[in-house]
């Protein structure tokens, strides 16, 4: 006798939320590819894709269809199972992170208060880290399973890069956590909506986090794993069709999530700037407020996405030793320093040192 004593509506609500968020992140990712090309064009004094649909609006679908229609080649000497598993892991892990990000405050539908967050667990940030650290496997397995030394080298490079920068990222976050005192992203956002954004307390931490986010997403200037000029096409050299698409897509999903994370951690998340959210909610109703908040969040995310692209078309790629040097000798000490300083200040503040 199975006793499923669970609120069915709760499950339903969460399922819907999950579906919505997945669809949104996929859509965003989809249009990020388009945006990337557009931004690249604009920065290079071009227009970018503008033929498919008005202003090129259907370009991502065209790309998608192209990827789907291409011949799906699995090299005969590759490890078939892992070859397929690799992009799957990459994609899954990219999607999983969105579970703990609060996309907006509560909305009320039919008397039920629904939080616009899939799971408000009290180890939110750690969860993010756990999932991010899993992301390495997608790259490694894919690169290794291709049975191609270039892929393998690129995969190992990518993996070591991600591991190295994860450290600095974690350390920079720790400084933030000292201030907030909570790992829950929701709490962090709530704190920011009443006070200053964390960016103003932690500018150095944010900078480190930003750089690490670039590295984690394998974005230029840290796109060593897919350095065309050195390693052919990087770890997904043997991939084609939608499996390649998954890898490319995962990158954009990662970008999206890390942008959302940065907004959440340092820029107030769904907090609408210069406005007292609570009083605004009373005037226009919480549902509308939630929508506005989501928009605000997406605006911030959009800015970061743009920033990602902007940097990509500005800064050239690192050499590998420079990359490692920056990570280990530059960022980690810096993050430690930041952490110590923050700890000191927190200590002084808690002990009521008058200044």
């Amino acid at each position: 006798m199975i006793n499923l004593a669970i609120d069915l509506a709760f499950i339903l609500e969460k399922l819907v939320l999950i579906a919505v968020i997945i669809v949104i992140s996929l859509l965003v990712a989809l249009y990020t590819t388009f945006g990337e090309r557009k931004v690249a064009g604009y920065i290079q004094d071009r227009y970018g894709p503008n033929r498919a649909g008005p202003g090129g609006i259907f370009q991502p679908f065209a790309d998608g269809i192209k990827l789907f229609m291409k011949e799906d080649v699995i090299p005969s000497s590759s490890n078939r199972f892992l070859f397929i598993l690799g992009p799957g892991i990459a994609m899954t892990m990219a999607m999983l992170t969105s579970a703990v990000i609060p996309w907006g405050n509560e909305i009320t539908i039919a008397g039920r208060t629904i939080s616009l967050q899939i799971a408000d667990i009290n180890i939110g940030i750690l969860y993010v880290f756990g999932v991010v650290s899993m992301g390495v496997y997608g790259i490694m397995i894919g690169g290794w399973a291709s049975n191609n030394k270039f892929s393998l080298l690129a995969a190992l490079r990518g993996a070591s890069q991600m591991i190295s920068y994860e450290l600095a990222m974690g350390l920079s976050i720790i400084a933030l956590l000292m201030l907030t005192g909570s790992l829950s992203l929701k709490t962090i956002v709530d704190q920011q909506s009443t006070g200053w954004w964390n960016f103003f307390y932690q500018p150095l931490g944010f900078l480190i986090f930003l750089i690490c986010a670039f590295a984690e997403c394998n974005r230029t200037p840290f796109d060593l794993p897919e350095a065309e000029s050195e390693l052919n096409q990087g770890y997904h050299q043997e991939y084609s069709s939608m499996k390649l698409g998954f890898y490319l897509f995962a990158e954009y999903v990662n970008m999206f999530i890390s942008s959302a994370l940065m907004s959440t951690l340092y820029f107030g998340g769904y907090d609408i700037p210069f406005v007292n959210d609570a009083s605004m909610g009373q005037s226009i109703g919480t549902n509308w407020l939630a929508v506005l908040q989501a928009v605000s969040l997406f605006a911030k995310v959009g800015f970061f996405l743009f920033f990602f692209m902007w940097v990509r078309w500005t800064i050239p790629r690192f050499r590998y030793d420079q990359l490692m040097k920056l990570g280990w000798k530059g960022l980690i000490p810096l993050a430690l320093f930041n952490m110590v300083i923050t700890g000191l200040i927190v200590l002084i503040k808690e002990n009521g040192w008058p200044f």
Partner: protein
Amino acid sequence: MQTLTNRAKPVDRRPMTVLEKLYLPAIAKGMGITLKHFFKKKVTIQYPEEKRPFSPVFRGLHILNRDEEGRERCTACGLCAVACPAEAITMEAAERMEGEENLYREEKYAAKYEINMLRCIFCGLCEEACPKDAIYLSETFAPANFKREGFIYGKNDLLIPDPKKEPEQYQKALGSRVKKS
């Protein structure tokens, strides 16, 4: 050493200052540059809709010209083939038969006239060599084909439309470069 252009900039080999080692100002500068370009006027020409004016000396694909009555000018004298440095031109001459006066201007004409566009270097020497103003380099460009044979243009590829029957297309094919005779 005196530089020739005075634009050469000697490499600065001073050790970097702390600020420079941070790279952040340099990055910000670079970002500024790219952002500036973001808002610049785009130089792209939306090609099929919009075309760039050709230069007066542009040399495109060849055409075999006709006179104003629509007769072929070429007499198959072979001077163009001789002049061609790439040896891209071959021709076969033939005698004009009775009743073909409206087709060929003179008694002799080119029964076969082929230019291998893969060899042609578009130097225009054929044009200068032609005593009859029969061959011109037009403004047409970007030939495309799936096979190499397709690039060996025969007479029907080269001859321009009849000015009397299709005057508009004739003008279009003629382009702006042809000396108006």
